[in-house]
């Protein structure tokens, strides 16, 4: 290397070294927030990018909406025991997949695990953190209507098993969860009232049953299946979930509070047929958007509104300082940055695997094996790709047959896999 070039390189290196040293001294001088801020941002971004379990949850959702509930259940179950802020959600997801897939044993355990935490006082530290950080840092416990639904599903499973005492307790718990709703909407979870009434009837407590049925009728007086005739004479009860859960969306100042919108779905009604004969149209027993919108406001909404106000204020003040020719640019930058970085976003986690509405239908049928067809309608037009046909569904000779169905596009697939000829003890081919 020629001496001239070497000298030049050494000089450059020396200058670079000086510049870096000066820069380092400036950046790392005592009291500078840059290193801390950069580290924090990097850490948050890294944590967001590497969030564990997101892969199996995404795949679980994909399977769930393709009605492959067994696969969804397995994928959701990978996170079920993770004791983090989404523990309740993980269990609700397992519960939903298991319930829709007919694995009521697993569903009941998952719903109870979730409900225990929803009812409890845990997550205090995370709750405090969420006051200054993002609201979603707190332990997810669900909105009142979600808590009510977890208990409602639990009750349905017990009811199906003929365990009236536990079923009634779970339905009561659903109503207790609904007590956190706004004034005037605390006893309007009609489907739970209806089921409590049915439990009381089975337990031979007709007076209590009558009170519950009256409360259910007060909410939906037009529902024909809440009538005494239907309650006393019908032996088949169908609980049909329609559509998708309400969408939780950010609203308010800087998206600091949450609001609900109707989930996107087409089906609005369900007509049921047994062996080709019409049984009638299922009737609305609870609208979850209605329940979500009347959940009531709590102290956390006030705190979130204040956080949103502060964030907006900081950004506005910073912008004003920067826009003002005589303003303090440094202060303006700090305020603007602080405002932009301030975590005030609302917690928009929700139990999105829920249906949007629950309809009920009851009928009197002779014991035997039935083919049930359910036509889902959009404004009185049958949606053919939503039609469900279920074969060899038994109606019991004694007691009540309880069936659960859930709407969905292309759900009841008529294309069964090719026939198998399994032999016990041989691995299936």
């Amino acid at each position: 290397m020629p001496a001239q070039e070497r000298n030049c390189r050494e000089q450059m290196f020396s200058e670079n070294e000086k510049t870096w040293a000066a820069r380092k001294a400036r950046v790392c001088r005592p009291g500078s927030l840059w290193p801390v801020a950069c580290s924090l941002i990097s850490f948050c971004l890294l944590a967001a990018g590497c969030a564990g379990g997101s892969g199996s949850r995404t795949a679980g959702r994909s399977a769930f909406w393709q009605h492959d509930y067994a696969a969804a259940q397995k994928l959701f179950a990978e996170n079920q025991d993770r004791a983090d802020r989404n523990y309740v959600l993980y269990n609700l997801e397992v519960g939903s997949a298991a319930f829709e897939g007919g694995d009521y044993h697993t569903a009941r355990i998952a719903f109870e695990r979730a409900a225990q935490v929803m009812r409890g006082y845990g997550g205090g530290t995370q709750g405090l953190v969420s006051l200054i950080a993002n609201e979603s840092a707190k332990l997810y416990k669900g909105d009142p209507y979600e808590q009510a639904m977890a208990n409602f599903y639990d009750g349905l499973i017990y009811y199906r098993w003929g365990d009236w005492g536990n079923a009634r307790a779970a339905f009561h718990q659903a109503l207790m969860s609904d007590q956190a709703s706004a004034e005037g909407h605390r006893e309007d979870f009609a489907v739970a009232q209806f089921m409590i009434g049915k439990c009381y009837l089975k337990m031979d407590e007709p007076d209590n049953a009558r009170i519950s049925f009256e409360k259910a009728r007060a909410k939906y007086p037009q529902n024909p299946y809440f009538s005494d005739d239907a309650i006393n004479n019908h032996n088949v009860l169908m609980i049909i979930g329609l559509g998708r859960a309400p969408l939780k969306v950010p609203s308010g100042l800087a998206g600091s509070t949450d609001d609900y919108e109707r989930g996107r779905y087409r089906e609005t009604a369900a007509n049921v047929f047994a062996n080709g004969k019409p049984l009638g149209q299922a009737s609305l027993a609870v609208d979850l958007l209605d329940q979500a919108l009347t959940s009531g406001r709590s102290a956390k909404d006030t705190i979130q509104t204040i956080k949103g106000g502060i964030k907006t204020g900081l950004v506005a003040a910073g912008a004003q300082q920067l826009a003002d020719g005589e303003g303090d640019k440094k202060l303006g930058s700090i305020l603007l940055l602080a405002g932009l970085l301030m975590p005030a976003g609302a917690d928009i986690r929700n139990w999105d695997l829920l249906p949007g509405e629950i309809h009920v239908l009851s009928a009197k049928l002779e014991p035997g094996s039935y083919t049930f067809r359910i036509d889902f309608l959009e404004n009185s037009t049958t949606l053919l790709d939503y039609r469900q046909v279920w074969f060899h569904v038994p109606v019991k000779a004694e007691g009540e047959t309880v069936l659960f169905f859930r709407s969905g596009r292309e759900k009841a697939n008529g294309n069964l896999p090719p026939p198998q000829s399994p032999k016990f003890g041989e691995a299936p081919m």
Partner: protein
Amino acid sequence: MKAEGNRQNEEGKKRSRFLFFLFPFSFFLLMGCAQQRHHARLDLFRVKDETPLKVVYCNDHTGHVPGSFPFVLGGTCCCTPSQELIDAYHRDGLLLDYDLSRLIQLYEGLGIQTARDHRDCNNQCSWGPHVLQGGKCMVPPTPGTQHYEEIITGRFRLPKPEPEDTKRR
């Protein structure tokens, strides 16, 4: 000195800009690299007609199909052992040397769970899948589900084998 200071300021600005763009870039990079798993179900959808499917493998919900005998003995019956079932076998001249306790012992000896042990698992329990699918669960599947129709018709998908240590308890 002033020139040196200006150059340092310029360097500083460049560095700030670099950091400003680096962080969002890293974020998107990390998001992109996050492990994503997707579920793929390949079978095509066809609207069902209402012609009932033929029950090939009977269970408690379909009712016992006369003439069938236990799947574990080479037949097509997956009904839960009961005295009524034994009587039905005997009426058909089958399993004449079996009584209820012997039939129960047969299933217990093979490690097969029936509706006498638990219920409503839709063969998703830790003994699953269904015996037809090579598992140890013979609890009748839940009516009104795809799995139920697949099992009673013998037209089912084979679940992917699951390592023992990852099986749900």
